[in-house]
């Protein structure tokens, strides 16, 4: 197989249901610090089920959809390989390990959450977790605030309505989503004037 991206189909045969389940199962075993890089590595580099371009295309769809992106990715990929049952196999394979890990964490937390050492450690970790989210949002927002357009205002209005006013999410989205899409439509780049 040459290194050019000219061939539209990946080199590997179509994975079976068991392959789908096991691939996502293994990804979650190595998934410290985000599962996306591992998913990409397995699908594009190791198994060659998708080309880099196909992977980006599938991921773009998952970002377009609401809900946890990486969970959507399991469904989209599984579904493309084997329809609904393929989606189910991939989705289940992906969720089993994190579910068991969090269940164990929940059991331990309910039992030992009040122990002094645990309390102290968590009171240090919680502010750090908040800091990680601040960094995430700063990285996402930075390019928007460097360009002209309605995006920075939409960011601030959303953060204000939800973060400070604590208005219900559904109502805020009911108003903001059409407004923001309308603004984006008006500002869209047109190839023909």
């Amino acid at each position, binding site marked *: 197989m040459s290194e050019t991206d000219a061939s539209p189909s990946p080199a590997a045969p179509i994975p079976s249901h068991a392959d789908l389940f096991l691939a996502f199962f293994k990804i979650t075993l190595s998934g410290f610090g985000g599962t996306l890089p591992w998913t990409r590595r397995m699908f594009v580099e190791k198994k060659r089920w998708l080309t880099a371009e196909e992977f980006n295309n599938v991921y773009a769809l998952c970002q377009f959809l609401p809900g946890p992106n990486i969970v*959507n990715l399991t469904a989209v990929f599984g579904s493309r390989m084997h329809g609904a049952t393929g989606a189910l196999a991939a989705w289940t394979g992906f969720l089993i390990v*994190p579910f068991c890990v969090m269940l164990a964490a929940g059991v331990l937390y309910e039992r030992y959450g009040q122990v002094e050492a645990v309390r102290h450690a968590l009171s240090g970790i919680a502010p750090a977790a908040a800091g*990680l989210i601040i960094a995430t949002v700063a990285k996402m927002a930075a390019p928007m605030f460097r360009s002209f357009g*309605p995006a*920075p205002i*939409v960011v601030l209005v959303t953060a204000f309505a939800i973060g400070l006013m604590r208005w219900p999410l559904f109502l805020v989205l009911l108003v903001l989503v059409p407004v923001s899409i309308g603004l984006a*439509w008006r500002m869209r780049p047109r190839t023909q004037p």
Partner: protein
Amino acid sequence: MKADGDILVTLAIQFAIMSLLALGGANAVVPEMHRQAVELRGWMNDREFTDMFAMSQAAPGPNVMMVTLIGYHVAGFAGALVTTLAMCGPTAVLAHFLGRTWDRFKDAPWRVAVQAGVVPISVGLVGASAIILTRASDHSWLAVAITLATAATAFWTRWNPLWLIGIAGLAGLTGLV
């Protein structure tokens, strides 16, 4: 904590709705989870909520698994199962159906405009998550310092976030935070 039917139905409905409102990913609905679990229904206090968020960041797997902790806290094993399925199921079904037609509309002008309109909203929602988590977890100057130091390090370096969480946990163990 015995799981009764009513609370499981409430969990299923609330988290299924949140699943479909999670524009851009799970972090976008942290504020709504907080509003539901802490403010409206009193399932937990601020401290428990931020503890659960912190654990979901520290554990392997996607951040969305915070819902498993909330479900377990509210209604035991059945609750954990219900919140996880409700949060991860509906959008997966949507993904299954839209995945087939995506190639036909991915370059359509309306699709591009929808995404361009939704992305700033999802960034704003993550910003709201940051506001709520900071206010709920920072009760001392040292906590504020940890938040700022973590944010700055994560923004300007490529360190693995787990190191930052580990350091913050050790700082917490001193009992001063």
